[in-house]
């Protein structure tokens, strides 16, 4: 019997505290056969199960080519994630997945790649950054934009500094509510920087993840610069219990975010995108 709902045991191999509330769990299946068979694409997610508490949908941060550890960067904000925050190296939990359609990485080959993220929205996109930087010759320009509220919310700061030094790469960081001095990047919304992006709007793919108002604010200037709605991809998030299109929580109009998404070209979701209540 193939039970689509049954998780598999994984072990916490490493745990990294990214900020006071954000942490990364590096996981490995305890069954080597499952570990070998498991494959995913950047942008896909897993259902992560905490014993006795429940499941939560978390995107996979690792590069598929990586050292076989599945990284999940999580913010402790709900019942399950606050519990996950307490796990230590060696603890066991459950995983099932991967689910959903990943980022359009094949379509992006030969094009400029624009990544616009806000808050922990950078997590599902960091796998794209790793993917692109390791296969740099396959893509044209790489633009990495990340917005946070406060400078201390920025995770992977050293990584951004490293990425900035790569050829043909632009990194734009912003903190919208930055009051302290010493922030070398822009103070304000990251979407205010869209006009500073150097790219060819007719040969580019944008991938965005973060609060919906942020993505909405990014779409307008990109459209103005000539990008088509099919080339702007958004990672959407809704309540998910089953991740296989059965439970109904993530329905967005006719779409099930879990199986049709979580990433969509803007053209597919634009009719409901700014409508409150969907």
């Amino acid at each position, binding site marked *: 019997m193939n039970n689509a*709902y049954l*998780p598999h045991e994984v072990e916490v191999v490493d745990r990294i505290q990214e900020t006071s509330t954000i942490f990364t769990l590096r996981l490995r299946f305890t069954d080597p056969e499952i570990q070998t068979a498991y494959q995913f694409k950047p942008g896909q997610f897993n259902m992560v199960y905490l014993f006795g508490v429940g499941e939560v949908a978390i995107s996979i941060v690792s590069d598929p080519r990586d050292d076989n550890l599945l990284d999940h960067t999580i913010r402790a904000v709900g019942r399950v994630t606050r519990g996950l925050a307490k796990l230590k190296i060696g603890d066991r939990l459950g995983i099932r997945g991967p689910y959903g359609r990943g980022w359009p990485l094949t379509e992006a080959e030969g094009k400029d790649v624009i990544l616009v993220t806000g808050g922990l929205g950078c997590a599902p996109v960091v796998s794209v950054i790793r993917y692109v930087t390791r296969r740099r010759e396959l893509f044209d320009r790489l633009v990495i934009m990340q917005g946070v509220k406060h400078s201390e919310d920025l995770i992977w700061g050293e990584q951004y500094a490293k990425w900035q030094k790569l050829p043909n790469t632009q990194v734009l960081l912003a903190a919208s509510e930055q009051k302290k001095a010493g922030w070398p990047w822009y103070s304000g919304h990251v979407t205010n920087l869209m006009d500073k992006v150097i790219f060819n709007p007719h040969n580019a793919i944008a991938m965005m993840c973060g609060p919906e108002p942020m993505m909405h604010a990014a779409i307008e200037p990109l459209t103005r610069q000539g990008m088509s709605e099919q080339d702007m991809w958004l990672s959407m998030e809704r309540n998910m*219990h089953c991740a296989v299109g*059965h439970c*109904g929580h993530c*329905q967005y109009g006719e779409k099930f975010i879990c199986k049709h998404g979580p990433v969509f070209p803007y053209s597919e979701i634009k009719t409901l995108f700014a409508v409150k209540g969907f």
Partner: protein
Amino acid sequence: MTAKQFLARQDFKSLLQALKAEAYSIIAPQVRDNAIVYEKIENISQLPRGILDIQAPGSYKLENEESERWFAWANGPQALKPLLFSPEEVLWSAELQDNKLAFKECAPDDKSVAVIGVRACDLAALDLQDKHFLQKEYSDAHYQKRRENILLIAVNCSHPADTCFCVSTGDGPFVSAGYDIVLTELEEGFLINPGSDKGSNICDQLPLCEATDQQTQQSFQQLENAINRQQRKLPNANLAKLLPDQLEHKQWDDIALRCLSCGNCTAVCPSCFCHSELDEQTLDGLSTQHIRQWDSCFNLDHSYIHGITIRAESKTRYRQWLTHKFAYWVEQYGRSGCVGCGRCITWCPVGIDVVQELKTIAGEANE
């Protein structure tokens, strides 16, 4: 079409005997708490003899009449849905031992069930649930097992309620597909027709005779009466096209003043599939059961995500339900999610009439 067969009323018990002989557990309508419910029966005396249902927005009453009929009513709050998509069931369990986790699948029920008295609307809804739960990529093992083990004995609806509109959705009152056996109840007995090999096998064991022309004629007349009895009709507009353009219609605010967000409509709807998953841990903290239970888009938690509730108001929750049922469903599964059973109208505690609300939104309220 082969000549119809007839099963006399006094021989109806032979149907139960044949089902029992084939090791079916028999579910059939009966009266409990002043409503028609589908539960296990042992003998025909438990069937609702001479019972009529009087349904109206927010109201359900049973009345007695001098009649031998067992199926002279439209429906009760539930029929097939809970038999296949269980209101609550364990999907799997987990055990914690020496800091290791072991997951165990929970095998679905494996018993054969025969359901007597299935309506056309319920068969149409079953087809919708099949489309949802038996998708190619992820088929629901629990649903699938029960679905394989169910025998569907339909009874054509002779007494639609005032809340029924299956003629308008094209799903009834006449059963046309998806059954193992179909019956038409007449005063002195039943016209009977198998619709599958499993159904034929049962019919072969019954003392049938050929139906008379008069009986066949009566069944046609009964069907015509059942059609004519339905006054309720969906608006003429193409709702799949119209509703997504009416997301800001003022009627949503009007409905929100009346809607209690209680979720009765989604609980009685035979096509609603939303469910939540949760863990129930044992007191020693060493084992846990992962449970699925029915959920409703009218619940506050339904749209909760990391500190945000997408649909905090009744207005957006009712709109979610109605636009899904009548518009987005069409793109998902090729047809509307409504089969015209009228349950959401009857069991709404404040009597919100989905047909009337749709007419208002479609600008056909006075037609």
